[in-house]
C-alpha cells in the first residue's frame, strides 16, 4: 500500500516540477527578444542532453565523452525520416528517441564491461568515428553538406490564439514540451528504486552485486535511457537548421560534460544551471568585454578560457558543482 503511495507522490512531484520548468521558460521568453529566445531554445534542447549525462555519469558513474555522437544519431534519424520518408517533424522526433535508445543498447552492451579511462577513451573515439560515417556513406547521408531541416513556421491555430510569434519563439515552443517530458522522466527515474539501484552500482559495484543487483544489465539500461535522451536532444538540435557532421563535433560532447560538472553532476537543478551557464556565458562575456579595448583575437577565445577555468575550479574546489555548493549552504544553515 505504502509503495503505491510513494510512486504516486513522486509522480505528482515530477509532473509539477516539469510544469513549473515549462512555464518558467515561457515566461522568461516573453521578456526576451528573438536572439535570446533562440538561446533559450538552445538551453531547452541541450538540457535534455546534459540530463543524459546526469543519468549516465552522475547517477551510475559511467563517463561518456561521446554524447555528441549519440546526438548525431538522433539528428540523422529524425532528419532522414523527414527528408526521405516525408514524416512529420513531431513523429520523427519521437522515433529518434527509440532509434537512439536502440543504438544505446548496442553501445551499452559494448561499454558495460569498460570503466574509467577505458570507457572515456572509447566514447571519445566514438565521438569522432560516428559523424564520419555520414561522410563515408555520402550518398545516403548527404556527406558534409548535410540535411537541411527546420522547425517550419508557427501553425495558424497558434498565431490565431496568441498573436504573431517570431520564428525563434516558435522554435522554443517546439522544444519545450520535449524538455518537460524529459525532465519528468529523469525525475521519476532518479527518485525511485531505479535511481537507487544505479547509485548503488556507481558507489560500489562489488557491494551492489552482493546485494543482488545485476551490474551488467543495470549499466546497459542506463545507457539505453541516456541514449534515448541524447538522441532526442540531437534531433531537436539538428532542426535548428542543419544535420551534418560539423554540427556534432567532438567538442560538443565535452561542452555537455562541462555543463553537467559545473552545475553539479548528480543534480538535476545543477544540470539546468550548468546549461544556462554554457549557453549564456559567451554573450555575457562579450557584453562585459565590450567596455574594455580587448583585441578581437583575444576576445574570441575568452569564453572558452572562462569555461575551461570554471570547469577546473569546480573540479578542484567544489566537485559537487553549483548545486552541491547550494546544498552545502543549506546544510550549514540547518545546523
Amino acid at each position, binding site marked *: 500500500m505504502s509503495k503505491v503511495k510513494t510512486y504516486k507522490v513522486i509522480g505528482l512531484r515530477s509532473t509539477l516540477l516539469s510544469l513549473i520548468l515549462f512555464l518558467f521558460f515561457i515566461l522568461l521568453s516573453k521578456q526576451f527578444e528573438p536572439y535570446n529566445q533562440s538561446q533559450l531554445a538552445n538551453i531547452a534542447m541541450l538540457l535534455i542532453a546534459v540530463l543524459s549525462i546526469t543519468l549516465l555519469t552522475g547517477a551510475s558513474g559511467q563517463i561518456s565523452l561521446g554524447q555528441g555522437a549519440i546526438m548525431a544519431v538522433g539528428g540523422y534519424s529524425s532528419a532522414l525520416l523527414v527528408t526521405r520518408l516525408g514524416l512529420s517533424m513531431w513523429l520523427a522526433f519521437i522515433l529518434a528517441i527509440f532509434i537512439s535508445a536502440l543504438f544505446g543498447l548496442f553501445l551499452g552492451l559494448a561499454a558495460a564491461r569498460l570503466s574509467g579511462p577505458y570507457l572515456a577513451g572509447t566514447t571519445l573515439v566514438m565521438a569522432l568515428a560516428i559523424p564520419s560515417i555520414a561522410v563515408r556513406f555520402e550518398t545516403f547521408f548527404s556527406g558534409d553538406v548535410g540535411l537541411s531541416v527546420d522547425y517550419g513556421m508557427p501553425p495558424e491555430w497558434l498565431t490565431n490564439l496568441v498573436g504573431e510569434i517570431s520564428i525563434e519563439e516558435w522554435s522554443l515552443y517546439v522544444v519545450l514540451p520535449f524538455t518537460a517530458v524529459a525532465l519528468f522522466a529523469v525525475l521519476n527515474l532518479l527518485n525511485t528504486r531505479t535511481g537507487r539501484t544505479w547509485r548503488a552500482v556507481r558507489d560500489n*559495484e562489488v557491494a551492489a552485486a552482493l546485494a543482488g543487483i545485476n551490474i551488467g544489465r543495470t549499466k546497459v539500461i542506463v545507457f539505453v535511457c541516456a541514449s534515448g535522451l541524447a538522441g532526442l536532444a540531437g534531433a531537436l538540435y539538428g532542426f535548428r537548421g542543419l544535420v551534418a557532421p560539423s554540427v556534432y563535433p567532438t567538442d560538443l560532447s565535452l561542452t555537455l560534460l562541462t555543463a553537467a560538472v559545473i552545475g553539479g553532476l548528480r543534480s538535476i537543478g545543477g544540470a539546468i544551471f550548468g546549461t544556462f551557464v554554457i549557453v549564456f556565458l559567451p554573450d555575457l562575456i562579450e557584453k562585459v568585454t565590450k567596455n574594455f579595448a580587448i583585441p578581437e583575437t583575444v576576445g574570441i577565445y575568452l569564453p572558452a578560457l572562462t569555461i575551461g577555468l570554471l570547469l577546473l575550479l569546480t573540479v578542484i574546489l567544489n566537485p559537487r558543482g553549483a548545486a552541491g555548493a547550494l546544498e552545502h549552504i543549506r546544510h550549514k544553515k540547518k545546523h
Partner: protein
Amino acid sequence: MTPFLTAFFSGTAQGAIYALVSLGLVLVWRSAGVVNFAQMGQAMFTTYIASQLIQHSYSYWSAFLIALISGAALGALVDLGLMRPLTSRKNSQLLNSQSMRTTIPVIASLGILGVLKALAGIFWAGEERGFPSPVAPNAIKIGDTSLAITGFDLFVIGVVFLTLVLTTIFFTKTGMGLAMRASALNPEVTRLSGIKVGSVRTLGWAISGIASSLAGLLVTPRTNLSPNTLDLLLIIGFTAAVVGGLSSLAGSVLGGFILGYVISFVNVYSAPENVFIAILAFLLLALFIRPQGILGSKEVRSV
C-alpha cells in the same frame, strides 16, 4: 613502389609518432594512475612556444630544448596545481565512489585541454603554422628507387626507441623509477616506507610532459601546428596504448606501430574516409579480445 610497400613504410613512419604519444600516456598512467587527456594539448602548447622562438631566430635545437623543459614544467604544474588538490582530503567525499575516482581526473584533464587551447588562441591567435624538421624530409633512396620513408622518419623511429629504452631502464633499474611504480600501485604503503609519494608523482608528470613535447615537435613538421591538429593524435595514441597494454611501456610502443600499420593499410587499400571507423572498430576488437592489451598484465581485482 607497390601499394603494399607504400603502406608498410608509411605505416612505420606514422606508427613511430603514435608510439611516442602512446608512450607518454602510459608514462602518466604508470606513475600517477591517470589517463591524461590533456597530453596533446600540452604538446601543442609547448610546440607553439618552440615555434615562436624559431620565428624570433633562435636555433632549432635551442628551441627544441626549451620546448622539452617547458613540457616538463607544464606537466609538473598540472600535477601540483590540479591533480594533487584533487586527491586531497576535502574531495575524498566525492571520490569515495569507485567510479568517480577514475572519472574525475579524466574530467580535470579535459578542463586543462580546454584552457590550453584557449590560451594558444589568445597568445598566438590559434593560427596554423608549419614547423621545421631537424632532419631534411627527403625520401631515402636505394639505388634508383626512392622509398616512401624519409630521413626524418628514421630519426623519429630512433627517438622513439631511445625513449623507450631510457624510460624502461628508469622504471625497472633505478630507485626513483621503482618508487614511481610503487606510489602509483599503492600510495598508502609506499608512503609508509618513507617515500615522498607526492614528489614522485610530480616527477612522473614532468617526465610525461617531456614525452608529450617530443611528440609535438616531431609530428608537426608533417601535420602543421594549430590548436586542434593534435586532437586526432590523442585519440589514436589512446587506442594504441589500449591495444598494446596501458600498463606496459613496450606495449605502448608496439601498439603505436600496430595502429600505424592499420591506419596506413586502410588508407591505401580501402579509403581515407574509412579510417576513423577503422580505428573505432579496432579499439572495440582489442577491448573484446584482450582488454589488458597485448603486453599488459591482467589486473587483479581485490574484493
